[in-house]
């Protein structure tokens, strides 16, 4: 994985840049010493590390605007960073770049129950939003597994999902507005508390743009009343195939559960050892199906899902009796990553999405790859929306094992694309999947995306080197190469 070569001129001006930024945000909020910078050297994808040139922590929108304008003027690259929990290296620093941290943007400005919305700063943790309105019976629906730590601004940048996105959508479906600063320092507001805005959908475009189009400085989210009841079913199956058929059967019956998760045998055993969730150890696969809503609905749907599981040959099936049991069913699923960390020195999380119907075929192929590469794999899977998280277990201290792991990961993602899926369902492209973009998109497709980038940031100073495998200059991308000019198909009738 190659990053663009650092700009020597920029590096030689490091002290001046630190002073210039210090004049904007206060010296205390610029970090230039090695020990402080070290803390920012990677995000949640720790396989890639780079110490940033400087870290700046602005305190308000005006400071962000002035920092970006300063950097634009001096041709300095900027990498925005929220809580640093991202899993694709989207916040990986640049050697000649300023990492712009939004940790000081930690206030909840307003919870507007009448308009069922909340206005928060981007550094507020995802879960803190729900906690702030819990007593009023509301919550913010998207719940990525890092929700204790991950920031809402980072959620916007990555379009984060979570186990409940099947029914409640991703970040993009739960946003109403943002304030953001463009690379030239211009502050714009898009959306508000209304459902729809006219004009181009900048809100939708910015969501999931991985910090490359602007720096988010305020977020307005949609909030929902908490469902009055929730129950989970824990179902065991003798094969991945049976579990896959059960997923298809539930969807075909017109049921959209709040969550529908699958774990395979290695994952089941890893989490059982880790947290004793009570999963059936004789099963090849388990499904956790959560149903929420009015009591009568939850009961009826639980019965229907149980029946479908039975026709798919479920070897065990249990409906949670109370909240404690429901939490226990989820405990194992939510512990999957740390559990993998216990059985292997390192693990690598993949994030492809596939059509649900190809599930067992893809799982079988992954276990073949596991043998070919001699690396163990545990699979956890947002089965309801086809989002697969294979965890490849490895030991980075064994020479060559990280490289082999990355190569195998690439094979898995290519497989996802080959069966009609995509490279990333919720973790983002970042640097991790950047060089695989050609598997999904043609050069023409990618150039059009890069032209969008140019419309926001013509100097390509904001988070460059991420998402796109090849950097093109905006001037080059802007040129048109049109042939033809003849009246097309002159034999067709015109009216």
């Amino acid at each position, binding site marked *: 994985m190659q990053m663009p070569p650092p700009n020597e001129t920029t590096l030689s001006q490091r002290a001046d840049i630190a002073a210039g930024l210090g004049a904007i945000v206060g010296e205390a909020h610029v970090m230039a010493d090695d020990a402080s910078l070290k803390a920012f050297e990677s995000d949640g994808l720790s396989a890639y590390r780079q110490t940033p040139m400087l870290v700046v922590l602005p305190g308000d929108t005006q400071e962000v605007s002035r920092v970006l304008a300063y950097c634009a003027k001096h041709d300095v690259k900027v990498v925005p960073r929220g809580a640093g929990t991202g899993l694709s290296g989207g916040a990986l620093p640049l050697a000649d770049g300023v990492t712009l941290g939004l940790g000081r943007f930690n206030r909840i400005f307003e919870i507007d*129950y*009448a*308009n*069922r*919305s909340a206005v928060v700063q981007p550094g507020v943790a995802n879960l803190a939003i729900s906690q702030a309105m819990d007593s009023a019976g509301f919550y913010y629906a998207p719940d990525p597994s890092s929700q204790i730590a991950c920031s809402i601004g980072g959620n916007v940048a990555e*379009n984060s*999902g979570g186990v409940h996105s099947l029914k409640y959508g991703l970040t*993009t*479906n739960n946003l109403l507005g943002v304030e953001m600063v*463009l690379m030239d320092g211009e502050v*714009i507001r898009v959306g*508000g508390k*209304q*459902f*729809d*805005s*006219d*004009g*181009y*959908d900048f*809100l*939708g*475009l910015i*969501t*999931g*743009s991985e910090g490359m*189009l602007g720096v988010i400085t305020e977020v307005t989210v949609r909030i929902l009343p908490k469902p009055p009841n929730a129950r989970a079913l824990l179902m065991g199956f003798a094969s991945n195939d049976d579990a896959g058929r059960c997923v298809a059967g539930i*969807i*075909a019956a017109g049921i959209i559960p709040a969550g529908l998760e699958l774990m395979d045998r290695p994952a089941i055993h890893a989490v059982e050892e880790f947290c004793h969730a009570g999963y059936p150890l004789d099963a090849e696969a388990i499904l956790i199906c959560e149903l929420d*809503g*009015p009591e*009568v609905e939850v009961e009826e749907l639980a019965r229907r899902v149980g029946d479908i599981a039975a026709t798919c040959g479920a070897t065990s099936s249990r409906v949670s009796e109370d909240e404690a049991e429901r939490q226990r069913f989820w405990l194992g699923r939510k512990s999957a990553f740390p559990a993998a960390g216990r059985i292997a020195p390192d693990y690598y999380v993949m994030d492809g*999405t596939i059509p649900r*119907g190809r599930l067992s075929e893809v799982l079988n192929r992954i276990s073949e790859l596991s043998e070919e590469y001699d690396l163990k794999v545990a699979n956890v899977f947002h089965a309801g*929306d*086809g*989002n697969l998280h294979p965890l490849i277990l490895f030991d980075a201290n064994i020479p060559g094992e990280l490289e082999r792991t990355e190569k195998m990961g690439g094979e898995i993602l290519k497989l996802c694309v080959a069966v009609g*899926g*995509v*490279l*990333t*369902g919720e*973790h983002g*492209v970042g640097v991790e999947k950047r060089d695989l973009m050609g598997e999904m998109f043609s050069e*023409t*497709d990618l150039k*059009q995306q890069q*032209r*969008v980038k140019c*419309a926001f940031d013509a100097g390509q100073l904001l988070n460059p080197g991420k998402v796109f495998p090849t950097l093109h200059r905006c001037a080059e991308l*802007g040129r*048109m190469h*049109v042939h*033809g*000019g003849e*009246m*097309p*198909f002159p034999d067709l009738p*015109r*009216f």
Partner: protein
Amino acid sequence: MAQTLKPGTVDELVQAVEWAVSGTHPLELVGGGSKRALGRPVQAEMTLDLSAFSGITEYQPEELQLTAGAATPLAEIEAALSDKNQMLAFEPADYSALLGSKAEATLGGVLACNLSGPRRIKAGAARDHLLGFHAVSGRAEDFKAGGKVVKNVTGYDLCKLLTGSWGTLAAMHEVSLKVLPAPELTRTVLIMGLDDARAVAAMGEALASAHDVSAAAHLPAALAARSAVPYVNEAGTAVTALRVEGIGPSVEARCRDLRNMFAPLGDGEELHRMYSRQFWQEIRDAAPFAGDARALWRISLPPAEGAKLVAALGQSLIAEAYYDWAGGLVWLALAAGEDASADSVHAAVAAHGGHATLLRAPADVRAAVAVFMPQAPAVAALTKRLKESFDPAGVLNSGRMYPGV
């Protein structure tokens, strides 16, 4: 009358745009043609007829996914989905009657204009359901974005950008959509006799409750009387409607709870099956205003502001309004005149938040006033740069949204 180009294949579509670009011949994009009276009038040299890109190419009910030519009639899509007990959850609106068009609404047109119906408050907008597309840009390049699966963050979300871009960025020819199971049962609880302010408050309470309301609308008495639905037109007073969908026992329980909840406010009634469906179709398509020629504004604003905005405008204008999206969508009809009272409407919307779109007015009025709200200078500049990144020569529907865009 402009001439028409009708490409039959993607290659021919690329050629058509190449020709347009090489001599800067502006094109007006048309699928079925039912929405030609929407937006600012386009001064095009030629019409680009996209109707050949029609037909469902892939429909996998168990994958909740459908792929079709962009010009596939909406009716064809809905019939295919209905066969499998599925639906487009955003409830695409059909303004053909409202705009006096006999043409058929197409899938691409609904997406290009991001036209969502009453279920928008629960299920999201048209933009939330487009998974992927193939299109020819104003650079005469065939490109794609997105995919066919629900969860996808690979690259920028150009699906959102293209939805609601009114054909000004690219000519979509194939689209993939997320589809959802249709509800087993639908019922609508009616509350009679609330004034606008109390109705908006009641709808807000309903949405804040655990009863999972999928649509909330309010018709003042004069507009309720225009409905074709018996219980509504016989009410003799204002009607507030809350829709409940899902499995049978749940719908029955929630309707009962909602009626109990609002019993202190006024008489209750319930619409079942046919009447419920008919009622929400009227709300969706702005049917209360289909029979007249007044100018019509579609105003999306913070829901709790709905009644306040209408009250504020009522002090200086003679206007009629009804509310969808629990107050978050105001349909406002007033005399077209020369400018559809654009300045007053824009000023009021600026004070309450949100956006006003001049959905219906004679062409000369739509050419004279801002059909879409004027944008802040930095946003307008960004809009222009985005337009240029897709369509540097300005040959695709240019001027449909803003001058030059």
